[in-house]
Structure formats: C-alpha cells, structure tokens
C-alpha cells in the first residue's frame, strides 16, 4: 500500500519501479524471442531518451569530461622550462603539493568557503521564510529585489566592494566617523573582506532554493506544532527546518562548491593573506607557466568539490532506499 501511495507522490520513483521488472523480463528472454524485443515499448522509449539527451551528453563530454581527464593526466607529467609539458610521467608535482604553504592555503580555502556557506544559510533561511509568507503582491517584489543584483556584471559589483572597503572608501570613512574602527585598520585585503564579498555574491543563490522549498512548505504544520505546545523557535527548528531540508541541501551545494573554486573575489579583495586555491592555480598558469603544477592543484580541488557532492548523493540514495524498504514492510 505504501508503494502505491508513493507512486502518486513521486513520479520519478514510480517510473523506475514500474519499468524495472518489465525490462528484466525482456532482457532475460532476449535470446529466445529477439523480435519481440525490438517492439518493446520500453526499449523504444529508452532509445528515444538516449537520442534526446545526446546533444547534452556530447556537450558535457567534450567540455567537461575530456578537459577534466586532461587536467588529471597533465598533473602526472613533468613541466618543461618553456611553459609546456614535458615527456614521461612523474609523481613529483603531486608530492610537491604536500608543503605547509599549500596546506595553509587549502585550509583557508576550506574555512572561507564553509564560513561563507554557513553565513549565507543563516541569512537566507529567514529571508526565504519571510518571502514565502509574504502576500502575493509583496512576494513578487521581494523576489525581484533578490534578483536585481544579477543585472549588474559580477566583476563590476566586486569592484564596487573594493572601492567601498578602500581606506578612502565610504564604509571605512563612515566607520571611522562613528569611532568604530581606528584609522590604522584596513578593511580590504584580508580574509574577512573575502568572506564579506563572497556572502554578498552567493546570498541570492541561497535565498532562491530556500524560498522555493519554503513556498511549498505547509505552514499549517507550524500551527500544529504551536498548538501542541512548541514555542515559535521550537516549531521553526523541529518542523520548518526539516520541512525545507531539500532546499537547505541545494543551497549548501550551490554556495559551497563555487566558493571552493572562487578566484576573482579573493584576487580583487583578498590580498596575500586572503589567497585561495583558485588564485594559486592562476599564478601557476600565468606567472610561473607551470601547467602540471596548476593541473595538480586543480585535480585536488576537483576532488575536494566532488567528495561532498558524492557523499550527499550517497546519503540521499540511502535515505530513499530505506524509505522504500519501510514502505514495503507489512
């Protein structure tokens, strides 16, 4: 019964569940009754699915998979003095990454990204919540406000921050006038400036998925929790947050992964103390002209990005599976 119910709710699962047993039987009999297979509507549909996704797959293969594989391959090649790639294979480049200076930058990349993500989530949850609860008229306006920054070039906006945080800039002068900072304090070229601008940049990307989840959330559940004795904070934590968990997860990934690979923001407002892995890779390519070294760094970064993604996907699949198993239990 649980399974039937699920079908109605999640077409994705039902489709898979519905087609799998059928496919198995047709595969099993393919040796005996091959002609029957040709007109199997499921196989036919599969072929159609392949055809329609072919352009996307080609694109992804050419511009994502092949370059990534190349980066991984080059990481194991020696560099030559002319900025090219030498012959043979070597592990020296990978080994050379294990130095305190790189580890410090890797660590900084990680904590800046995590801190940015956490701040974004903390700011976005109340924003998404209040946009979802706003009246129809206001919802559109508020969403518009979230989207408006996208109309200005990203680079221009980061430059704007640079001038705002500049020793002669508006924010610095205002804080000085209020006596909150001394004249010696610099707001620019440090990790704090990087985090500030990254939060600014990624906040809309966090608000949107959280708003989408909150908008679908049934707020009567919050009422039910309040009715059962929960304070508004308890209802928020125990009912609302679990209710928008998918949105939170999306928001996390959408910020954390690009943050790990960010280059422009630390380059413009970070200074030497705010450098991240992205800056190091650029330096290896443009300043040192050492492609294997840059590739090795990139490979590490790609793995660092993929690891949380794969972990999350695996967790989700596990959760889904256990749900289905429970649904089938009598």
């Amino acid at each position: 019964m649980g399974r039937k119910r699920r079908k109605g709710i999640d077409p994705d699962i039902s489709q898979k569940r519905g087609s799998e047993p059928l496919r198995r039987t047709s595969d099993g009999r393919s040796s005996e009754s091959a002609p029957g297979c040709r007109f199997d509507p499921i196989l036919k549909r599969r072929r159609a699915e392949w055809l329609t996704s072919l352009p996307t797959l080609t694109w992804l293969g050419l511009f994502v998979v092949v370059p990534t594989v190349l980066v991984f391959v080059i990481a194991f090649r020696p560099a030559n003095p002319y900025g090219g790639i030498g012959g043979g294979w070597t592990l020296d480049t990978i080994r050379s990454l294990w130095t305190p200076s790189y580890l410090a930058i890797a660590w900084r990349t990680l904590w800046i990204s995590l801190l940015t993500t956490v701040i974004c989530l903390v700011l976005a949850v109340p924003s998404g919540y209040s946009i979802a609860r706003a009246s129809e008229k206001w919802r559109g306006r508020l969403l518009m406000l979230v989207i408006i920054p996208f109309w200005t070039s990203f680079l221009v906006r980061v430059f704007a921050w640079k001038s705002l945080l500049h020793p002669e800039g508006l924010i610095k002068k205002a804080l000085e006038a209020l006596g909150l900072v001394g004249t010696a304090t610099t707001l620019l070229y440090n990790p704090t400036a990087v985090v500030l601008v990254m939060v600014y940049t990624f906040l809309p990307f966090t608000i949107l998925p959280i708003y989408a989840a909150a908008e679908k959330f049934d707020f009567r559940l919050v009422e039910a929790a309040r009715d059962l004795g929960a304070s508004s904070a308890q209802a928020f934590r125990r009912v609302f947050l679990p209710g928008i968990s998918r949105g939170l997860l999306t928001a996390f990934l959408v910020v954390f992964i690009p943050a790990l690979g960010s280059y422009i923001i630390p380059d413009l407002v970070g200074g030497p103390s705010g450098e991240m892995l992205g800056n190091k890779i650029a330096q290896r390519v443009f300043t040192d002209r050492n492609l294997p070294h840059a590739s090795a760094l990139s490979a590490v970064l790609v793995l660092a990005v993929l690891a949380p993604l794969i972990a999350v996907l695996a967790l989700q699949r596990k959760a889904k599976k256990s749900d289905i198993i429970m649904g089938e239990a009598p």
Partner: protein
Amino acid sequence: MAEFLEFRGVSKRFGAVQAVNDVSLEIKKGEFFSLLGPSGCGKTTMLRLAAGFEEPDAGRVFLDGRDITGLPPDKRKVNTIFQSYALFPHMTVRDNIAFGLIIAKRPKAEIRDEVDRMLELIRMADQAAKKPDQLSGGQKQRVAVARALINRPDVLLLDEPLAALDLKLRQKMLIELDLIHDQVGITFLYVTHDQAEAMSLSDRIAVMDGGRIEQVGAPAEIYESPRTSFVAAFIGDTNFLEGRVEACPDREYCRLAIAGLPGIHCFNDKSLQPGQPIYLSIRPEKIHISRERPEEKPQRNYLPAVIEDVIYLGSNTKYWVRAGGYRIQVFRQHARYFLDEKPLRWKDEAWIWWHADDGFMLDHFRKADEDLLAVPPQSVGEPLNGK
C-alpha cells in the same frame, strides 16, 4: 456544570469580511459542542480564536474561568485536530504522537508509555514506525486525534476532521470519535458544515451564519423548533408558506390566513397576535400523503394536491405536490412496501395533511432566505425560482 470555554462579545474582521460578529457563547465542561454552518459563516474563525491562532478584535475568550485572550497557542491547554490533519511528514507515527510530550520535556519512559497507551486507544500499535504518507486517510485522522489527546487538553478542537474521508469511513470515524469522547471525557468543540455529523455527535449545537450565532440548542431542539428561517432551512428540508395570523380561537392554536390555503391551523408557541405577518414552516416528513381523503379531525390541516414530481429514494419517496398554488415537498417513509399497491404517480390527485403541532411559525424572515419560500408561479419541470 458551569461554563468552561466562554466567548464573550467576540468579533473578528479579515479585511472587508466580518468573520465573527459580536458572538457570545458558553460551552460546558465535558460537552460535545458543535459549531454548524455553511462555509464562510465564521465557525472556523471561532475555533482559531479558541486555539489562539487568531486574536479577537473585540471581546474576550475564557477557559475554565481564566482569561486566555492574547495567550499564544502553546500556552493554552487546548489542542486542535486540523482538517488536513497536519501530521509532521518527516516523523513516524510514534514521533508525531509523542511530539507534545517531547516538547514538554517529559521523561523518556513516561513518553513511551503514554504513546503506547494512545496507540492502543486508536488501535494502531502495529503502525507506529510508519511515516504519515504511508497511512490511509482514516489512519491519519486517528493519529491526529492521538497526537492532540496525549497532551490531555482541557478542550479538544476539531476542524471538520471528517471532511476528507469518504462516506463509509466517515460514518465509522463518527462512531469512533463519539467513543473517544466518552472514554476521555474532555470537552469537544467540533466545527462542521455537515448537519448529520453535528446532529449525531453533539450534546448541543450552535448554528452560525454570517459571523453570528443563529441558535444554540440540543440537536432535537434545533431541528424541531428553529428560531430563524435560516436555521429552519439549513437543518433538514422544509416548506415555507407566507401569511398572517387570522384569529386565535384558543390560547394554544391559531388560524392562519395564507393566500390560496384557507383555514390552516398552527400551534402558537410564540403567543402571536391576530394580524401579525408570519411564515409557516412544515417539514416534509411531517406531511402525510394518500389517495384517500383523510378523516376530519380538530387541528388537522388537509389539502387536495396534484403530484408534480416523484423521486424514489429507497427508504423513502420524495413528492413535489401542488396544493393551493404552492409547490410543497412531502417525504413518505416506506414502512411496508406492497407490490400490488398502486403507487402515486405524476399528475395523480391526492390529499396531504399534517397536524397543527407539526408546523411552526416564524415571526420574521431574512431577506437572504427569501428563495426558500414555496412560491406559487411554477409549473412542472420548471426550475425552482428560475434558478
């Protein structure tokens, strides 16, 4: 028993809509009390005012002698069963039921025992590990009941809890709710638009319309002596005839002047005076119908009639007849069915009669209920009042 949950002069407005308009209502301890009315009559707002989801613009709400106006929902010893059940989708049945006790930080062992007891009460001990989306409608409903009752509220508020269920299940849950009310003995405030639900469950009913209470009373009282035309028309079916009091030969009965229907008598329970305009209401099941002319008796009103429509409903038949120019509906219960009986058919001539005690007079009539009047100018097959 004294009043337990009390609304005193409560009003609530949403924008241009006056949802609740100066309502005073007292509900006794242990009572099964229903708020009955059409959608938009303000009954759900009353419930939300009791739960604390809304605050009244004017008036106060009292619970057990304490003013609870302004208290947030979590500070009121009142729990709600929502129409949509509002079960927490990410929690199991057990965790849903335990929610109130977990929030109240009760000891683990106690929570486990209490939840087990509740699962026993709703007969779902074997479903405790399921998530709400694996349950049927009836099961969800029972979990919602258990989740609310486990907090031992002073008042249980039920917001159309059976509306989402199909007929058979609704009848079953109706009995179950009644049993639960008997077992736990707490006050139930039940909101519904379904008169059958309200009638069968309630100790008392308040009929609401347009943000006001039209009448409060026991189910039989509401049905048999409605105070307003709205109540008469909303609860069950009825025929309305417009006229005035002609004479009151004795203290109990008076003769009415209704155009086209001379000499109708009615019990005068409102001590109306001759000359006063009235509306006579007669329930269709109180009217007898037969081919033979009935015996003449004092206080018996009888009229010749022509059958215009016959609607066979199994346990009874509904006749639309024309008498004195009025279209009147009559129910006939099939106590015994004779195969050789010559049934009344379309265009047959027949007699209808009812006792003067079975009609009741309303001294005023709301403009909005005018289309409920049995008006003359209609022919067979023509829709009622051009609707």
